[in-house]
Structure formats: C-alpha cells, structure tokens
C-alpha cells in the first residue's frame, strides 16, 4: 500500500524534531543550544510560562488551521509515544494476521478525567506546586526521560570514543563524568517511560487525550480547525479499518464521526481506508461531533514519587599523612554536598519564588550544566525536580551562562557573563572548625586565590601574633555565591560553603 503523503510529511518532521530536541538534552558540549535551542522554546507550556506571545499565537494559529499537528510533530513526548507504540509487534500482539495500525478501537472521550486533570494542572500552576506541574506536563516528562535515561547512554558511547581518541592521541572526543544527579528523579523518569510505553502499546495516545493538559487546551481549538479529517458517508462501507488504525481512538466509524478534540492528525486512517471515504481537507459540512461518555477507558496509574534521598556524589579529599618515602598518591575522600539552610538557585532565576513559578522542571538546564553544579531539588515537595545548585563537583564558572541560554520558560532569564559577575545568588560562610589552617596548622588560602570576585582576603587570626595563622575573611557584599571557594577547599566537609539567597541581589 502506498504511504499517504500526509504520513510521509508527518513522520519526516516528527523524526527530525525528535532527534533535534533529544540532541539538545543529551549534548554536553554546548553546541546543540545554538542550533536547536529554539525547539525547547517552541514547546507550548514553556512558551506560556515565558509569556512568549508570538510562539503561543503561532501554535494556536497552527492548531486552528491544521488541527493538533503540534502533538504529532512538535511535542517530543507525543512522537516518542508513536515510536513506543511500534513495540507492540514484539510484545503485545500474538495474532500475526493483525497488521500494525489495525489494533485500536473507538472509545468516547473521557471528559471528567481530561478536564479534572486540566483543572488540577492549572491550580497547581497558579498555586506554585511545581512538582505536580512537572509530573503532568508533556515536555517536562520528556525532558526528565531524555536527561536521566538517554543522556547517560549518549555519554557512555561518547566515553568509549573518548578512550579511543585518547589512545590515538587526538582531541576529537573527550571524557565526561556520568553521575546520577538524583535517585528519586531517576526513578520517576524510568517509571514515566515505563507507564508511557504500556499506555502507548495498549491504547496509542491515551496519555495525550486523558492526562496531557496541553492536549486538552489545544483540543478546544482543534475542534474548529480549518483542515480536518472528513468522512464521506457515501463511500464508507463501515469496515472499521479507520477506527482500528486510529491511535487517538477518536473515529466512530458507525456514526461517521471524528472527535477532533482528540485527533492528532497523524493520517493513519487516511491510509487505512481502502474506499477513499476519509479525506484531510476543508470540511464540507461543519458538524460538531457529539460524544457520550459511558465506559471507563484505561486510566494511567498515578506516577508515584516522593523525593527524599541523598545524591550520589563523589568528590575530593585527602588525609594528611606524614611523608616518609617518595611517590604515591594520597587517597581522596568523597565530598558530600554541603547542608544549606537556603538552597542556591542559578543566576538569572531572580529569586526562589520566580524559579518556582516559572520552572516546568524539564531538566534541560541540569542536563546542559557543564560544571556539574545543577541538579534536581528533592528537599521541598512543592518544587521537587526544579534545579538547585551545589558545589562538590565543580562551581558556577564565571564565563558560563548556559542554563540561562537554554531555559525555555524564562524561569532562568537570559543573563550575560558581565551581569552574572555582579549577581549575588548567595554568600560564602566560613566554618572555623573545619579550616585546615587551624586543624592542620598549614598555610592555605585556596579559597581566596580562586575567588573570582576577590571577596576573600586572608587575614591574621590574632593581630598581636606576628606568625598568626591566616584565615579567610569573606566580604559578603562582594561575594556572588559562585562556590569556587567551596569547590577548592581542601577540608571535608568544606570549611567554606555558600548559603543561598531567596532573592538575588546585585553587587
């Protein structure tokens, strides 16, 4: 059977779009953002949160004209589900005579579920319960899956190449650290993928038409789209091929109606119909389909999560041993993340509140952070999975503004390196019990040496003593909270750490 032109266009666009946005999430070199960074900003929810009016209008107009093609070619989670649905050949279906795309059936719209999910979502959005927003939003779910599951695979493959490259003595590839930023978020991502896989295999676009708030919002407009799938009742022989091919379960072949609120314009029905009864064109008769809800569709099990856990991290440290012989390396002890009374949020996020209100927890900033500073937060269930900073693997380097460049929602606003250099996201606090100057009686000052804003001066502890130990004096008004001091501190735990500021300041 010749593939329908609509399907060819849809599949091509979908594949390019999915690969590009996946690249954006797995890329660690920082080059993807320059080429495909816009794709994250074209996502519906991020555009709404960023008040990106032009993108919102464009997407609404797109839907008004073509129907919900957004769900088929722009939304990465939608495309991912289409791919996952193909797995049924191996797993689900034992009847070999059944062909792909001929296994679904019509089911009425489950309005109560759809609308209650949308209401829950809007309430969560307004009330600032970021974790619920992040769990329901399609782009966030995809981001979690890409950042937590796809990225490590990509990096692993890169590291194999990097080893080869090192053996060959060239610099084509370099090694990157693969580490779990948060165990709970990893578990949530894996469960999301598992549930989506099951739903996609059994019911096609079940998630998109029952849970997804973006799908529901677009459905209000797609009902009135100019171009849509139209039934020619005269040609239809009620064979049910279209209903079986419809992954959105929205074609009622008996009544010759299509539920345009759920149709994602995939075109599979056009190909399935052997009689030319279905066409994607301007409607001859504009008739709103009426559906009645009676049966309960397969409802997705609620993704259980709860965020409490320590990060798996490793970092430096050393035990100071008396040197008696030559050679060898001192053991390095793990450095645990510092306990902070106020979490640190990235420069550009303005305040903890601004971040919480705008972030969809898509993990893009976390995946892109080249200094291993950002990770999903797990302390507060309201803002769970939104980015938070810690400095045991690196610090917020002065030249880097990558998270602010990639953030699609404006939760981390674009910031220049110069602006960042004067943005105070926190301040350093010295802990005398830990400082090696006092515990090991050595000269140090590594914090002062590495402070990019010269906020630390080494001063004598006792002014009267000529050989008094020199301790770091932090000028809080100059400190921007970048964490260089915390990262290079030889003590375990660090004798100097950064406390976040709820509202960022300017120095």
């Amino acid at each position, binding site marked *: 059977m010749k593939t329908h032109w609509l399907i060819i266009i849809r599949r091509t666009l979908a594949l390019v779009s999915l690969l590009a946005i996946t690249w954006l999430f797995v890329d660690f070199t920082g080059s993807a953002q320059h080429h495909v960074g816009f794709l994250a900003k074209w996502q519906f929810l991020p555009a709404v949160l960023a008040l990106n009016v032009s993108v919102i209008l464009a997407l609404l107009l797109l839907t008004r004209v073509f129907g919900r093609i957004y769900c088929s070619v722009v939304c990465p989670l939608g495309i991912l589900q289409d791919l996952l649905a193909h797995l049924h050949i191996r797993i689900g279906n034992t009847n070999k005579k059944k062909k792909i795309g001929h296994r679904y059936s019509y089911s009425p719209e489950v309005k109560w579920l759809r609308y209650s999910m949308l209401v829950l979502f809007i309430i969560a959005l307004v009330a600032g319960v970021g974790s619920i927003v992040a769990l329901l939003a399609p782009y966030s779910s995809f981001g979690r899956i890409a950042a937590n599951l796809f990225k490590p695979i990509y990096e692993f493959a890169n590291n194999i190449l990097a080893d080869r490259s090192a053996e060959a003595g060239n610099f084509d590839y370099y090694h990157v650290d693969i580490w779990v930023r948060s165990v709970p978020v990893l578990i949530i991502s894996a469960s999301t993928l598992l549930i989506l896989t099951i739903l996609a295999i059994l019911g096609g676009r079940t998630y998109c038409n029952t849970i997804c708030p973006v799908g529901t919002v677009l459905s209000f407009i797609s009902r009135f789209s100019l171009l849509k799938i139209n039934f020619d009742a005269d040609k239809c022989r009620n064979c049910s091929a279209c209903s079986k091919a419809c992954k959105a379960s929205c074609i009622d072949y008996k009544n010759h109606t299509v539920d345009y609120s759920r149709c994602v314009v995939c075109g599979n029905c056009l190909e399935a119909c052997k009689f030319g009864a279905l066409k994607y064109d301007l409607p001859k008769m504009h008739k709103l389909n009426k559906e009645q809800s009676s049966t309960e569709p397969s409802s997705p099990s609620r993704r259980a999560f709860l965020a409490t856990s320590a990060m798996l991290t490793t970092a*430096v440290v050393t035990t100071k041993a008396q*040197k008696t012989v*030559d050679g060898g390396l001192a*053991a390095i002890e793990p450095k645990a993340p510092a306990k902070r009374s106020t979490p640190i949020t990235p420069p550009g996020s303005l305040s903890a509140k601004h971040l919480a209100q705008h972030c969809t927890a898509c993990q893009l900033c976390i995946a892109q952070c080249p200094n291993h500073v950002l990770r999903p937060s797990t302390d507060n269930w309201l803002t769970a999975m939104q980015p938070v900073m810690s400095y045991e693997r690196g610090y917020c*380097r002065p030249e880097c503004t990558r998270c602010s460049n990639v953030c699609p929602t404006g939760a981390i606003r674009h910031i220049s390196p110069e602006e960042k250099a004067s943005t105070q996201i926190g301040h350093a606090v010295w802990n005398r019990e830990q400082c090696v100057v006092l515990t090991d009686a050595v000269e140090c000052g590594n914090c002062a040496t590495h402070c990019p804003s010269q906020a630390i001066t080494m001063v004598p502890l006792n002014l009267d003593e000529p050989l008094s130990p020199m301790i770091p004096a932090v000028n809080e008004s100059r400190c921007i909270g970048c964490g260089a001091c915390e990262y290079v501190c030889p003590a375990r735990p660090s004798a100097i750490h950064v406390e976040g500021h709820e509202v960022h300041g300017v120095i």
Partner: protein
Amino acid sequence: MTNMNKQYNRRNFIKYLSGAAVASSAMLSACKKAMSGESSGIDEEASDGSMTYRINPNTNDRVSLLGYGMMRLPELPKPEDAPDHQPAEFDQEMINQQVDYALEHGVNYFDTSPAYCRGLSERCTGIALSRHDRKSYYIATKMSNFWPGSWTTEASKEMFEKSLRELQVDYIDYLLLHAIGGSSRDADGNQLSSWETFEARYMNNGILDWLVEQKQAGRIRNLGFSYHGDVKVFDQLLQWHDEGRYHWDFVQIELNYLDWFYADEINPSNTDAVYLYGELEKRGIPAVIMEPLLGGRLARVTDEIAAKLKQRDPDHSIATWAFRFAGTPQGVLTVLSGMTFMEHLVENVATYSPLHPISDDEHEFLMQIAEEIFGMKTVPCNECQYCMPCPYGVNIPAIFSHYNKCIRDGYIKQSNLDPAYRTARRAFLIGYDRAVPRLRQADHCIGCGQCATHCPQQIDIPGELHRIDEYVEELKRAGGPL
C-alpha cells in the same frame, strides 16, 4: 694497548676540556685548575662491543660506566577497579630479568635508597641481586633521613641497618648522604636553612661520624654524598675534604648538557654542572652522575630539536646524545639511569659498549641544543616523585608533565588572537583532564609547601602550580565550548 687507550683518552679529555673552555670563561679557570691539578687516577678500558669501565682510585673498583638507578622500577598493571590512590605493585619478575640482563652485559653498579619507590626499592633490588654472587655487583644506597622523625641517632642508624636487611647484604659498597643542600622544616614546622638541615640530619645526631666508623669496620666501602640545591653546603663539605676532616670517596651530582651551563639560569638556587664537576675533578674525587637525561626530558624534545639531533646522528636515538655527554668526562665513575623498561636498558648498554666520547664539535652543538631547550621555559621537573605524595592529593609531576608536553607540542598560546589558539586551548584542556583527574589538578594546591622542600630541582612547586592554574583559568574563561 691499554697504554695507547690511556693516551688517546687523555688527549681526548684535554681536547674536550679546552673545547668547553671556549664556551665559558668561568669554565676556563676550572679547566686550568683541573688540568694542572693532580691526575684523577680514574682510568678506562674500552674495546669494541664491551662495556666501558672506570676505575675508582679509592678501592680500585672497576665500575661500569652505566649504573642502574633503582628509582623508577617497573610496575604491574593495576586492577581496573582499583581506586586511583591505590599504588600499583612492582613487577619483581621484570626487575629480576632486567637486573640479570644488566649484569650479563657488564653493568655492575646499582643505586637505590630507602625512600625510592614508596620505600620498596631496596627490597626489590635486594631480591633481584641476592640471586647473584655478591662480588659481581656494587650496591649504592643512601642515608635518606629526610623527615624530622628520622633525624634521631637511633632512627638514622636503624635506617642503615634496615638497608642491609632489605638488600640482603652485610656491607654497602657506596653509601651516600642523600641530597645534601636541601632545606626543610623541623617537627614544629620551623623553616631550617640548608646548612641547618644538614646539621640536623648528619652532624647533631653524630651519624656522619658513626658512618665513618662503619666504613672503618668494613660495613661501608665508599662514603660520599649526593648533592642538590644550595651550593654552600657542597662547598663546605669539599672544604672539609681539603682540610682532611672528612674524606669523600665519591660524590654524586646532576650532570647533563642542559645543566652544564643552564642549571643556574633555569633556577638561581641550582648550580651549573660545569662548576660542580670541575670542583670534583680538581680534587680527584670520582663523580657519579645522576639525571643524565633529566627524567626523560632530554629524550622528549620538540620536533625541531629532534630533527636537528637526528640529522647529525640518524642511527642513534635522541637519548643516546645525553648519555654520551654524561659519560664523556674522565672524572665520571658511572652514569645512573633509572631504566624502567628493558628497551631503555638495552639501548643504554649499547651506548656505553663502548662509549664514543662527545667530540668538541658535538659539544658545541649540544650547547646550542641546550640553549633552545632552555628557551622553551618548561618546568624543570624530572618526575622523580620526591615531592609525592602531596597531602592534599595533587598529582604534581603529572601536572608539570602535561604542561611541559603542551609546551613541546606548541599548545601554549599566550594570545587568543593566535589563529591556532582554539586548537591549542582544546588540546591543553582536554589533555589536562586526561592526564590528571579533576580533583588532583593544580587548583587543589593550597600552597602548604610540603613538596617544595623535597624537590631536588629546587622548583617552587606551589608557585609553578599556581601559575599553571592561572593559565588554565585563563583558557577556561576564554569561553565557548571546547
């Protein structure tokens, strides 16, 4: 025949000295003294295909010109899951094989220390050598009482007794006061000058006198010292020799074609080899040579320098030049080389079987090469590991090695206007992460200074690490993805 050789060599020696004298007026006075001074009493036999030997006038030991330095012993591969601070085990089987090969091919001088190879060198050396006739080899080891805890009489005596046990011998052929001229800190952390350090290690505890007693008792056959650093200590010890207070049977110095004139200019607290050698030569004290290859730095040169050396002698390796240079002066008893791999051993044995001395022309040529290497401003680290372990986990030699490699490969660019800047930046930063784990890089140096007192090259290690760290920071701030 022996006589002819003797004459030839003597003539050659004079030629060589006068050649060098042209290059330096400072040298000139040293040469005149050397030439007018007493004969060193050192002699050489050479015939085609067999090792060149030199005679130690004190004990008439016939010492091979190539000495085996047991400081860089071969290691077994580490288990893959081993943490990076877990040291690799030494490959005793390979050590035995290499020692056997060395003895078979005429090498008979083995130099070790209680501090080498994380304190295991003497044991490995003892195991390998005890399989052979005690008369067939000479053992050199050292009084390596560097840390204040080993400065007491008892601890230092025990160090010597332990050396005998580890080496499985009842006498030491060559015993050295290890690395005089360095400064240190005492147990309370007070800075001691180089002379105070010498006194604390050897005089206040009476160990030097005790060692002289051991020599009289036959447990030590030759007593000498190795020197790095402050030349005042070197001069003072030689003055004692002149006064007859102590007699030095041999002295170990650093000598190679870079240090001949440039040691002082690379680091003002070092002394040019031409002076050190001259002082020994005029007293007839046999010189044992260390760092003939500067820890391999004279083998790892830029492509331009490699091309020049190869053009002049295409049939031999680049390292051969350095060994020929170090072995040429007649006052040299033996040239130590820390040969980790069999191929180094085979090559060095070949270089000295027999020695083809450096001619006047070649000497001048090598001085030009030295000038070029000096001009590159590499960190003069020979990766001897004396500074390690750093208490804060920094891998000092690996950082210097990477930096030097980048200088040699032309990857250090001062200006980002340089068209090759991007490539150089990428190569430096990626190579840095490959060579040194992040947490062992220069930014983790706190400047405690423990390393600096141990560096035989007198490198200001914290200063150099901070300089490299600043360069890395500059590269990183240049921004943009790698």
